[in-house]
């Protein structure tokens, strides 16, 4: 599975790099000129397709790993970053940036707001519930998430007459990979790298945490510290992804769940597989949208639609087999 995913990722990446309106010959000539130092003019491959590919890989890997880690931490296959309100916090802070128009003067306001919103949410949840165990943590997360979504709704309703702003919000919430530049890639990559390294670093501890907090403590795991650091890693992954691409719904829920079913719950195998699978699927979806010129769908719409259908199919299959969902 790992090798087939790698192969698909390589094929899709090559397709992303070579497919486009500009002919390959022109693109290649521009690349040679750039590297020989004879021209510094904009090149579709180096300045548009390559950063887009990096953003897609980083976003797919981030969302999938974040979802996988959350499912392991909560020992719940339906857990996702949304459960702790990270997505809602990030969305709300980006909404505020869009309303104030800061992004027009400072283009990096959106990424910073996304990460800030995510981190602030997790800090509030942690400070409110750290001494009361996992159950309270989830409940606090759900309560805060609901509150943040409500505030988001209140703001959107209050500003419903401003259709330009509504259109901007709708476009952002639908997710988009149009015109991703090196700015997006540079903004996201360090966050993704730290987030992924953090998750990988604690892969064994995540496995032990699945036994329960008490057993994990007895086995020498500093439960609070590990959990807190993993939350920060997830916040970095989610914040970076939302800032770079927007809302990609269902991705962090379905993909890790499917991989867990196929490969088992061992996080030593699960985390790298989630990263590769996430990157592969997102690059593939982007290629589908571009190759078939499907303009009426965004990548967020497509991933949500396919994810939802796939998840539903999976549930129906389980029900038919009479299996319990766990």
């Amino acid at each position: 599975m790992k090798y087939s995913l790698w192969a698909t990722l390589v094929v899709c990446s090559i397709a992303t790099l070579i497919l486009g309106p500009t002919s390959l010959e022109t693109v290649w000539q521009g690349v040679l000129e750039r590297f020989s130092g004879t021209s510094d003019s904009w090149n579709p491959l180096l300045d548009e397709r390559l950063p887009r590919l990096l953003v897609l890989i980083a976003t797919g890997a981030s969302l999938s790993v974040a979802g996988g880690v959350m499912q392991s931490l909560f020992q719940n296959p339906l857990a996702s970053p949304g459960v702790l309100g990270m997505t809602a916090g990030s969305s709300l802070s980006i909404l505020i940036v869009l309303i104030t128009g800061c992004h027009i003067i400072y283009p990096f306001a959106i990424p910073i707001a996304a990460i800030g919103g995510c981190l602030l949410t997790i800090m509030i949840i942690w400070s409110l519930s750290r001494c009361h165990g996992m159950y309270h943590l989830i409940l606090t997360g759900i309560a805060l998430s609901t509150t943040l979504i409500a505030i988001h709704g209140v703001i959107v309703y209050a500003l419903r007459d401003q259709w330009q702003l509504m259109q901007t919000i709708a476009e952002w919430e639908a997710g988009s990979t149009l015109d991703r530049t090196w700015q997006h890639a540079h903004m996201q990559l360090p966050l993704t790298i730290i987030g992924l390294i953090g998750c990988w670093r604690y892969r064994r501890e995540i496995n032990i945490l699945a036994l329960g907090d008490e057993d994990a403590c007895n086995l020498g795991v500093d439960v609070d510290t590990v959990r807190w650091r993993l939350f920060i890693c997830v916040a970095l992954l989610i914040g970076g992804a939302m800032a770079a691409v927007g809302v990609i719904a269902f991705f962090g829920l379905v993909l890790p769940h499917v991989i867990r079913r196929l490969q088992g719950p061992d996080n030593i195998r699960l985390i790298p597989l989630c990263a590769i699978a996430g990157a592969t699927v997102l690059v593939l979806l982007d290629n589908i949208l571009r190759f078939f010129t499907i303009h009426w769908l965004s990548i967020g719409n497509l991933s949500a639609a396919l994810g939802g259908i796939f998840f539903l199919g999976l549930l129906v299959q389980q029900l038919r087999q009479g299996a319990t969902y766990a």
Partner: protein
Amino acid sequence: MKKRLFIPLPYLLSITFIIVWWVIAFNSHEKTVPTKELTQTCTQPESVILSKLDRQTIRRALDGDLTTIVQLLTDWDIDARLIQDEGVLPNEQFCHAMSLARQLQQETEETSARLLPQTFVSASFLLALSPPENIIALPKAMRRHRHLYPGDKMDAISLDIDGYNTEILAKNKPDLAFIAPYSHPSTVQTLKNQGIELLSIDNISSVDEVIESLHRVGKAINENRRATLLALFIEAALNTVDNHLSAWCEAGNILPKRPLYLTRVMNFAIPTEKTLQAKLLHRLGINQPNVNDTIAWQHCIDLETIAHYTPDCLIISCSDTQAIHNLIDQSKALKHTPAVATRRVFCIDEETQNAPCQYLVLAYFDIAEALKMGGNG
């Protein structure tokens, strides 16, 4: 104590890594500072033969001002005869328009039906056709667009259409409410329950549909003649813009060969053939790429596709000229396109472009003026 110093190390390392990456990446990122104004305001070049086409005067006529309509129709008819030896409208229609204008000028305005426009389009028509005292309320957001809709008339109408003042609106006893297919079903039901007659104005995506809707509104409020006059004026105005453009070309000027019309919210987009803009562009002879679509109203377009199209003139419908100015200046992708290299990038008012009512004339005028500016005259 030693342990305390040791614990934050992973955090410190992570934060340092992120900050160093960002500092290196964004400090080395070349910032292009705009050296001179890229976008330009559309202005009417001097014409030695034709009457001056003034946007504000056309707007006043579209607001329903009869004197301005008569004056412009007369001027434009003379212009048309100077250029093409025939009037701005077929003779019969021109005479009909002038006759209607004279009749309406001599009549005193009578109080007629009490009107409640739920949509921008119907409100826009009503402001031109009916005195403000007959209009009970306006869509709230409309008041923000004073540069497009007549501010003095809007000020004379104190009420806003809002879900919370249904009772106040009902107390004013509207006779007729104008709704759209997308109106909220519960609002429509409430209006029906209040015994108000409803008229639905369909989605408008062509000049013919604007004219047809205008006639429907005119007929519904018993202002047929005024609606007919405004419809004839719209037709004459569009013809006049065409005439001025041909005269400009005949004077030795050349229009851009590959102009590209874009809209901008979060991304750049091209309006599809479903839109009114596409029809106006088609009338002006602008052939846009990738516009065939029966579902979407616009296609998002990335910078690579724009650059690959190599436009020699960019016309961008947007609400924030400065933001577009900064974006284009900093875009390496667009830097070498003929349009940006020769500084032929023009921002036009988005509200006007998206108004499927009588103000489509101004939308058409703005695009035509941008084309002239983008030409090499």
